[in-house]
């Protein structure tokens, strides 16, 4: 049973946007802080820290999650995609360009999470209805109240 003895921290191996990282982390460290502070991937934002706002959303083994609602130690062995992984080389991808074209961001704070939620949605449903788009970004709060333009941007990519 030695393998299950509780530990205060451990070395984790996590693949993020195709790069493998190995770091020692405390058990209490949230995944969002691991990404931002340990890996310096500051694209994912901390908005509320309570699982409500979705600014920290990332893809975790292909599944949309809020990275403030996981521990970094849980992610040992996982593959994660963050907003930094969306661009194709130096070019913003179609979704990112659509956000610009449709003025789908004002302050931009929610944008990384919105982009990851839209990415997850479009992979599952390449041509989502407006209702499906609204359901898809239900876990992401925009306090500039720009939802209409965000929905339009996602719709334009899925058209």
């Amino acid at each position, binding site marked *: *049973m030695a*393998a*299950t*003895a*509780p*530990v*205060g*921290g*451990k070395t984790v191996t996590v693949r993020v946007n195709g790069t493998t990282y190995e770091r020692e982390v*405390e*058990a*209490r*460290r*949230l995944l969002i802080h691991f990404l931002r502070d340990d890996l310096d991937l500051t694209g994912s934002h901390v908005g509320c*820290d*309570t*699982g409500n706002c*979705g600014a920290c*959303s990332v893809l975790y083994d292909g*599944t*949309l*999650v*809020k990275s*403030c*609602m*996981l*521990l970094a*130690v*849980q992610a*040992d062995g996982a593959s994660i995609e963050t907003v930094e992984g969306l661009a194709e080389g130096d070019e913003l991808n179609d979704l990112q360009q659509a956000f610009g074209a449709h003025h789908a961001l004002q302050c931009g704070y929610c944008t990384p999470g919105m982009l990851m*939620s839209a990415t*997850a*949605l479009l992979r599952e449903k390449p041509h989502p209805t407006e209702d499906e788009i609204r*359901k*898809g970004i*239900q*876990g*992401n709060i925009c306090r500039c109240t720009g939802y209409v333009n965000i929905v339009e941007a996602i719709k334009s990519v899925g058209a």
Partner: protein
Amino acid sequence: MLLPEVGYARPSTVDEAVHVLASHDGARPLAGGQTILNVMKSRAAAPDVLVDLQDLDELRGIELAADGTLVLGAMATYSEVIASAEARARPILGEVCAQIADVQVRNRGTVGGNICSNDPTNHLPPLLVALGTTMTIASSAGERTVPAEEFFVGVYATAAGPGELLTKISIPAGKGDGFAAVTIGKDGTCIVSAAASLDGDAPRVVVGCVHGVPVLVRPDGADEEAVRRAVRGANLEPPSDVHASADYRRHLAEVVAARAVQRARTRRS
């Protein structure tokens, strides 16, 4: 946010998990983490050890037994229930799971976590009582089963005690079910909820958010007046808070119970 210091264990079998749960006072299972991590952030509780259940594949299945019983592993996520062809044997389950929070939470949150946290505002405790569910709990002493109406023992408290782990949720076959709630925003936290099942001899109607545990009432008929009378007869003493007064919750309890039964009648016919 920095959480309180905590130990972490990641067992690979249920036997190992119940061993580590039993070996440490203050050890708590970590399922999807969508409740317990927030509880730790708010300092409402500080477990000494989190026992991560993610490698316990034996808790992940969603299976339909030969007699029609739907068996959910405690680690089945809401999204897995929604997508499961087997879970459509009891369609209300996927419908209610689709009303919980948002995509991200549904992808991580688990059926077992929802019921073991037994927050009175959670969707699944009243639903599973209405459906006549049986819980299977493992410990180093073996397995035991507990009917849902005995599983929920108080606010945040269930029959799964220290050193025990909920493993399976067994739901009998049926289809005449309904659920209704008044929530804070679409798919938000329930202010009052009700679940109903008309599959047995008399309707099973269960009201949530009005007591520490789901309240089961047995109306003598499935018409609106019988349902309202049964809920009134339960003499509910719900809490008052910023979202609703006790009087308003009492009123809503009758309303959502009647709606849940009406939806169940539509489903059954």
